[in-house]
């Protein structure tokens, strides 16, 4: 034991810059959760402060997307169009955008806040969480719009619309886990940011945003793979609850919940394990 270690031990000083235990880390995160919420809200305001439509853009852009995809797949490629197409597409786009938007944007949550990370000490997991909260704030009015839209296109509200609530919770947990993974990977290598758009694009086709996986894919193992991808399951459950003629099995619910819990647990642990590294080279 060196002299300095002895001095430190005599005054019972603690080591600086070591990763706290997971329990302590999560408790500290919970104590400062208001920071994540305030950071999300202020960032949303700042993002749109200079445009004339302001916050309304967060609703207008997805509405335009639904319009574009609606025209392309509803009119031009009408042969692959599933029944009740407009509600089908609205649910698909809004939910897909929520999850993939969270982790695409959240990938940069550490690297783009370098000044903050290097100047203040706080559980870094607040930053990816804040991005998910920001996406959640944006999607809530969209969900309302989506429900009105689904209703307007012929689906009467019924009790199973409430499935949307547990479904949305599962999606949020999954999005949070995926965002944490993406945020840590981006810290290790910026190249992740170049690849993410492709991941999102592949998921877009593989989760049946605008086409029905179960009706179109007849190779069994491929169908099982596509069907059980988490984004598809979340959409399938929402559609089963809201649109006549669509169903979700108990197995679908189980697999979807398993994805959510597994992704969140993995994301938290994966992110936490590099906690002391986030100050370097960002």
């Amino acid at each position, binding site marked *: 034991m060196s002299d*300095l270690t002895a001095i430190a031990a*005599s005054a019972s*000083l603690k080591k600086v810059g070591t990763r706290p235990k997971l329990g302590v880390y999560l408790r500290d995160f919970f104590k400062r959760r208001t920071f994540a919420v305030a950071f999300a809200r202020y960032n949303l305001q700042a993002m749109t402060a200079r445009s004339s439509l302001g916050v309304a853009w967060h609703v207008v852009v997805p509405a335009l997307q639904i319009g574009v995809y609606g025209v392309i797949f509803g009119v031009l490629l009408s042969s692959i169009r599933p029944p009740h197409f407009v509600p089908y597409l609205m649910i698909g786009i809004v939910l897909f955008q929520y999850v993939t938007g969270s982790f695409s944007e959240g990938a940069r949550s550490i690297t783009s806040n370098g000044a903050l990370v*290097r100047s203040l000490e706080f559980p870094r997991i607040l930053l990816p969480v804040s991005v998910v909260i920001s996406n959640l704030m944006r999607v809530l009015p969209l969900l309302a719009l989506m429900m009105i839209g689904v209703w307007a296109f012929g689906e009467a509200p019924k009790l199973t619309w409430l499935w949307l609530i547990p479904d949305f919770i599962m999606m949020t947990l999954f999005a949070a886990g995926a965002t944490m993974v993406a945020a840590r990977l981006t810290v290790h290598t910026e190249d992740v940011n170049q690849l993410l758009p492709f991941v999102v694009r592949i998921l877009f086709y593989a989760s049946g945003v605008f086409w029905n996986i179960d009706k179109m894919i007849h190779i069994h193992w491929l169908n099982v793979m596509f069907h059980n991808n988490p984004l598809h399951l979340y959409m399938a459950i929402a559609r089963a609850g809201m649109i006549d003629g669509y169903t979700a099995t108990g197995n679908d619910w189980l697999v979807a919940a398993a994805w959510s819990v597994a992704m969140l647990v993995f994301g938290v642990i994966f992110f936490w394990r590099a906690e002391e590294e986030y100050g370097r080279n960002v």
Partner: protein
Amino acid sequence: MSNEELTNDIGAELSSAERVKAPTFTAAGKTPVVVVDDIHLKYRVHASGKAITRANSRVKRNGRLREVHAIQGVSLVAYEGDSIGVIGTNGSGKSTLMKAISGIIPIDSGIIYASSRPSFLGVGAAMIKTLSGEKNIILGGLAMGMSKAEIRAKFDSIVDFAGLRDFIDLPMETYSSGMVERLKFSIAASREHEILIIDEALAVGDQDFRRRSEARMRELASGAGCVFLVSHSMKSILDTCNRAIWLDKGIVKMDGTAEEVCRAYSAAQGAPLDD
């Protein structure tokens, strides 16, 4: 200043090996709050241009990857009541050392101990420039772990200390750099800190603000606290600090009373202090 009971046991001319072994600026009977034990820190950076010279021993080259050995074996002990000035030329590792002590940048070897998590106040910190000063006060407070009620209670005194009452609802990008630093210091100083590290954050403030902030720093250090102040202003350091550390190329060149270190450093810089 209470320098009498402090003794300096390191000279400016020690070799690197001796410096590592016997670096402590001892103060009998005082409680240590920060112990830095032989730390090294390297930055790994992707080079974006051609190297001009290979003479600089702190930069190792490996393809496009450059390794900058920013801190090369620093040891020190800070005691309660200490207020320590950190001086050195640009690029001597002052800010890096301060960020390492506060646990913001991970170190490669060595150990840092502290009685509590040090708070760091630096240039270009926690501010979102598109947001108003008011919202930045709230965010800064929340990130430091204050509750909303606590922030509300302290809000007026923070604004008044910064002297920014007229501008608090304007986005921070419209502030001058001096105004930004004033606001940041006011936010950080609104709370008690056991260990506070101030990295050149006061250099841009005006005379009046400097006087008030230095008074606040002495107040923070006079409790059970300890303050580190990185500054290029010998006057600031002499006015605020009882002790100073001179960093040069990533090692401690001198550790002693503020007066003698400032004098030696100024002489080396070719601008001796007046008596």
